[in-house]
């Protein structure tokens, strides 16, 4: 049995530079990521936080910032009581040019067995990345209500 992790691959008709900007700027993330802002200066070792409607939902620190190829940060959820006590996990984005497309591979790893956070992010990432792809290709993000994802502990 493999270690618990979440891997998602999607192909987007855009450039690595535009995708990188979308992954690292609040101006973009607010549009495709449930109105979430990315609070960090993106220096290696700097703190990183996801802030939704003024409330910090997740925190971490910047591990890699290799524009426009590889981005990673540690990730710990802080709202839900159970998830807050789980060990920090790691999010890695890899961007690869693929003809006129970009192949985006997201790996979220470092979960303990039976992690409640793993269940939550497994529902969240497909919605976020689908919305990101729509925004870059059509100019319109998806408006998926977070409640529709049915993540335990998250409204």
């Amino acid at each position: 049995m493999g270690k618990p992790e979440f891997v998602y691959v999607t192909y987007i008709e855009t450039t690595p530079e535009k995708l990188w900007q979308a992954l690292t700027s609040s101006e973009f993330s607010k549009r495709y990521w449930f109105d979430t802002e990315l609070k960090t200066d993106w220096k290696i070792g700097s703190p990183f936080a996801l802030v939704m409607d003024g409330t910090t939902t997740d925190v971490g620190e910047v591990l890699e910032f290799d524009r426009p190829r590889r981005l990673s940060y540690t990730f710990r959820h802080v709202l839900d009581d159970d998830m807050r006590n789980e060990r920090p996990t790691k999010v890695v984005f890899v961007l690869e040019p693929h003809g006129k497309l970009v192949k985006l591979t997201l790996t979220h790893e470092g979960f303990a067995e039976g992690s409640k956070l793993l269940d939550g992010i497994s529902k969240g990432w497909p919605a976020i990345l689908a919305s990101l792809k729509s925004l870059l290709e059509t100019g319109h993000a998806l408006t998926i209500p977070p409640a529709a994802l049915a993540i335990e502990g998250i409204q």
Partner: protein
Amino acid sequence: MSKPEFVYVIYIASTPEKVFAALTDAKMSEQYWAGNRVVSDWKIGAAFALKLKREETDITGKVLEYDPPRRLAYSFHPQHDGMGGEPPSRVTFEIEPQKDQVKLTIVHDGFEPGSKAFEHVSRGWPFVLSSLKSYLEAGRVLRAHWYEDERARQGAA
């Protein structure tokens, strides 16, 4: 050791009817699935074929579920690249409306441990489903560079 299983969820700004049509119509599949066509009369137990554009054989199977516009399932048996000796696997699509979008879940299971077909489809589905989403939302299809390269070679020959 659990059996290999591929699960993928994608959200598409479309209707369940349009997504279901795209999954079951040969002309539409040809657009987003790199020239490959899904062919069947979609009666339960009837033959299913994915007519591959580049390989010399089809992927064959049988229709297992056909419940428009909610669920579709077929067995899936590739013959090319030495995969003909493996037992057929199973593809299940589930379509759920969510506001003005559709949540599409694909589960591809029924593989033996170490299955080569599992490796193939795990690489293939993210591309096919990314292209399906672009096709339905933007009227565009994604082209993998390996198909572009193929066309370039054929053009040069």
